[in-house]
């Protein structure tokens, strides 16, 4: 296409007006007559035997319509899937229970469900359910949990549920060659998604006995899992996905859906269930804490020659997606660096903490904290500029990932993005007062977009050109706020030469829309973007061919612009789109298309030594910050924050910048204030008063710099940005703190107290 009309233009999103006017109906904004209210009874203990459950009193309470426990669930033991098309083997299919049975494994685990006429009655019913527990010791530290003889969280003989590795070269040789070796251990914390919309939905049975679930979910393919739990055919459960009030991976696993389905099935009535903020923080998945031991060696000239890493991730009480997350961490353990000798070993371990699963970044931010801190240390030891040492070691096009050996055939925008992010900091700020010290930090990284290739991922999309020249799109794509839905409209508008206002899209409904796969893994622009592009181009071809006959010119001389089929380079000569459509309809030419896009497929790798391609492609980025550290209180203020990514091609620059700005602050919270604190499995940060995310008053104006290499696998060369955008910032901040006060923080978050304890060692000795 000569030049873009819609794609690449910063434009208001399709969904923006409904949102700004408060008209968009989120999961909790919708009700049905006769609707019941559901509540969940949750375990008081992180680890305990369930001796007995007595629901009789609760059932007798007036207005209570159903009380369910594990024995009422047709298939209570199930495994986490997320819509993959290929069989990937037991290693990845983590068991979880819909309702706790015999044993509870974390505090807040669901034990019983209640549906009642009002929320108050449902809550009262919870108090009337008598559960007799026998507390068990439990285990809360993944390192402890790995030891032989440790308390067993599950029923298997070990707490280790995932065990991955990859290696290249010879690390013995590497360490022998190295002039300097740094060995260190880092820890990162539990993180909550903290979307402002908690998990929620409503369910009902339609006239044909189908369970309809209207819910905020990143994975509408879960309709199959819900059907399996109830023992129903898959076509008897329908997901109607709402626009989400934020997802960040927290709405990737099933949240309320199974509970809703069970209660609706039992009562035959509509049921609503919405989590409280406390429930959301206490009972739903978290980002994995990792314990990471690194030993890295480099030559005097700053060249990295060897990396040996051991990663241990805390899966919490049930596997969910932990093995996948740990695999991501394994593949990303060496970062975007060329290191000849590498060994990575990683373990994924059950504990009696709240379960962990997908959280924006999916195992990538954790190792990034370590390798970017370590390379910063090398830079200082060798007295090399932080940008230079990254130049010396970073991957470039044609090079291979140092963990798996996957070769980068697509464009690698390193060190370009690093140079731009670093330069964008501009002149250093004046030091505000004598007690504050200014420092700067840089970090680079990479993250895949699109599913692991052995999952054989695909997406489908349907596009129809109506007889009046308007367009209908049907795509199962869920939208968690990133503008996924609007992005598809832009692509179609571009290809068919019509304005956005002429397009209507139906999304995220398993009864109405072809399945587009999950809004996870930063895959939708790549996968559903391509599927929709394919469908649109098929229709474009039909229209142009027909117009070519009528205009009697060669089809490749024609273009679709402004609702016209125009002759390129002579736009005075054209056929109105509407006439081309008429002609097609008269001739019986199909002006609709359901297209499928498949990602590259590979076989499941040897997980003990992962080699070759595991992801379709990666997004490369860099972030830089300038901080002021208060040397007396330890408080850190981020004064400047720049973020630069090669996004391939920005379909809507506003949305892409939005991801980069939001991702940066999401990562800033990770670095400085956010931590779900658990003491022996009991969460003591259950609200937004204790779980501290940044407010507007805490953030700098993020400077987002887009590099558009066109080198991506998505439509028009686009890459994914959603998760990569938050995966690099934390170490940049840690490096800036070091630059300011010479303190290396090795556990997140970098609280004022941690900084002061390191700065004022003598004081705290006494």
């Amino acid at each position, binding site marked *: 296409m000569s030049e873009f009309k819609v794609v690449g233009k910063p434009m208001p999103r399709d969904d923006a007006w409904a949102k700004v006017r408060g008209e968009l109906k989120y999961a909790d904004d919708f009700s049905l007559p006769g609707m019941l209210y559901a509540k969940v009874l949750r375990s008081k203990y992180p680890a305990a035997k369930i001796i007995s459950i007595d629901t009789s009193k609760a059932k007798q309470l007036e207005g209570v319509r159903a009380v369910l426990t594990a024995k009422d669930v047709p298939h209570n033991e199930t495994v986490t899937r997320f819509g993959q098309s290929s069989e990937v083997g037991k290693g990845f299919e983590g068991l979880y229970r819909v309702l706790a049975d015999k044993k509870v494994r974390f505090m807040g685990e669901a034990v019983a469900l209640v549906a009642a006429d009002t929320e*108050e*009655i449902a809550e*009262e019913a919870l108090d009337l359910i008598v559960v007799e527990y026998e507390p068990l010791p439990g285990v809360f530290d993944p390192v402890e949990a790995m030891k032989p003889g440790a308390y067993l969280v599950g029923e298997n003989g070990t707490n280790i549920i995932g065990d991955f590795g990859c290696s290249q070269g010879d690390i013995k040789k590497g360490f022998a060659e190295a002039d300097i070796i740094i060995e260190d251990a880092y820890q990162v914390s539990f993180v909550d998604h903290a979307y402002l919309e908690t998990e929620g939905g409503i369910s009902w049975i339609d006239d044909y006995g189908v369970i309809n679930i209207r819910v905020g979910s990143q994975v509408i393919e879960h309709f199959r899992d819900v059907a399996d739990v109830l023992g129903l055919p898959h076509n008897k459960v329908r997901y109607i996905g709402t626009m989400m009030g934020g997802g960040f991976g927290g709405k990737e696993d099933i949240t309320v859906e199974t509970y809703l389905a069970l209660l609706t099935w039992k009562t035959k009535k509509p049921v609503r269930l919405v989590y409280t903020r406390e429930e959301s923080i206490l009972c739903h998945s978290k980002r994995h804490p990792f314990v990471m031991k690194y030993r890295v060696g480099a030559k005097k000239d700053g060249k990295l020659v060897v990396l040996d890493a051991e990663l241990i991730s805390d899966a919490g009480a049930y596997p969910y997606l932990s093995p996948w997350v740990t695999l991501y961490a394994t593949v990303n353990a060496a970062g975007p660096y060329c290191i000849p000798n590498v060994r990575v070993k990683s373990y994924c371990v059950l504990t009696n903490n709240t379960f962990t699963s997908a959280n924006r970044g999916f195992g990538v931010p954790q190792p990034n904290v370590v390798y970017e801190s370590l390379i910063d240390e090398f830079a200082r030891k060798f007295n090399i500029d932080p940008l230079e040492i990254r130049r010396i070691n970073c991957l470039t096009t044609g090079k291979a990932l140092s963990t798996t050996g996957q070769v980068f055939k697509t464009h690698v925008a390193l060190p370009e993005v690093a140079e731009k992010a670093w330069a964008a900091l501009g002149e250093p700020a004046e030091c505000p007062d004598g007690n504050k010290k200014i420092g700067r930090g840089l970090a680079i990284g990479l993250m895949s977009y699109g599913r692991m290739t052995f999952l054989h991922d695909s997406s489908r999309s349907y596009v129809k050109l109506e007889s009046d020249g308007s367009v209908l799109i049907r795509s199962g794509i869920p939208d968690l706020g990133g503008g996924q839905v609007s992005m598809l409209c832009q692509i179609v508008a571009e290809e068919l030469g019509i304005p956005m206002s002429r397009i209507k899209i139906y999304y995220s409904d398993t009864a109405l829309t072809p399945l587009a796969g999950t809004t996870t893994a930063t895959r939708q622009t790549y996968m559903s973007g391509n599927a929709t592009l394919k469908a649109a181009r098929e229709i474009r071809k039909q229209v142009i061919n027909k117009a070519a006959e009528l205009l009697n010119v060669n089809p490749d001389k024609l273009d679709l612009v402004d609702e016209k089929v125009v002759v390129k380079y002579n736009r005075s000569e054209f056929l109105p789109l509407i006439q081309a459509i008429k002609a097609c309809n008269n001739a019986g030419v199909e002006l609709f298309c359901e297209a499928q896009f498949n990602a590259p497929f590979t076989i499941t790798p040897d997980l003990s030594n992962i080699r070759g391609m595991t992801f379709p492609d990666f997004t490369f980025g860099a972030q830089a910050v300038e901080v002021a550290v208060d040397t*007396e*209180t330890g*408080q850190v203020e981020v004064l400047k924050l720049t973020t630069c990514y090669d996004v391939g091609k920005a379909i809507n620059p506003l949305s892409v910048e939005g991801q980069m700005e939001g991702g940066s602050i999401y990562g800033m919270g990770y670095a400085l*204030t956010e931590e779900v*604190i658990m003491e022996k499995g009991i969460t*003591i*940060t259950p609200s*937004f*008063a*204790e779980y*501290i995310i*940044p*407010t*507007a*008053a*805490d953030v700098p104006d993020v400077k987002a710099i887009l590099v558009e290499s066109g080198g991506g696998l998505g439509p028009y060369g686009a890459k994914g940005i959603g998760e990569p955008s938050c995966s690099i910032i934390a170490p940049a901040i840690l490096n800036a703190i070091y630059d300011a006060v010479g303190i290396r923080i090795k556990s997140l978050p970098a*609280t*004022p*107290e941690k900084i*002061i*304890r390191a700065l*004022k060692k003598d*004081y*705290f000795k006494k």
Partner: protein
Amino acid sequence: MSQFKYVSPKTKDEALEILQEKKSNACIIAGCSNVLPNIRDKKIVSKVLVDISDIEELKGIVGEKDKIYIGPLTTITELVNSEVILKEGNVLHQAAEQFADPIVRNSATVGGNLVDASPAADMAVPLLTLDAILKIESVGQKKDVQLRDFFIGPGETILQEDEIITGIEFESSNINKNGCFIKLGLRKAMAIAVASIAVNLEIKENKIAQVRIVMGSVAPTPIRLTATEEFLKDKEVNDELIEKAIDKVREEVNPISDIRASEEYRRYVSGILFKRAFKKLTLAN
């Protein structure tokens, strides 16, 4: 199921009579920024909610020549916007500007913040350095209570179930005009103090004529550092004195460890906050 009742007296006397009748069944509400979450968490059950938010006589700020009166129902926003407070009780004004966030400041009241009796209470700390007096009433009875005698422990005060605070007063004086409040939180808005300090100071002939030092979040209640005050009294201000005073402050505070910070850090940072507040005031003079 929890059964609540609701009354909204329009006058102080009406309210007092209701309290006398209902006693412990009554729960006074006004700004609700603490009460409603507590009701949700079932920490408050089956009470008569006595909504005093419409009682005009308990609102507003009056500056007389020798003292300043603050109605307990005065919102934090009203403190922020008050010329009188800015001039006569600047330390309170500084604290009000850092209270919670701009929206909550429109609901939360001074009286509510005091009776909530949090060790971190952002209004209690500056009012204590202003040496404020509370006017407390029950049916047929009025008494003045020193604010420093008001707090017993976390969430506990001497206020009886049939009493309400009907006024908060502090003197118009040089020392009250010269104060500094510093709050150390983990973020810039919606923060609960890790530690906070208010200092009011009067210097005559280069000597410390009068000083009041109060800290929040470093003891079971907001605490007045009388020993440190004694130590400073009548002394000349110099760096050596301040260094010594910092140690005194760290001895005198009695913090605990919680999710926001450890006991050790709080003790340490108390000294820093003192130094900063004190220097700010002495440099100003």
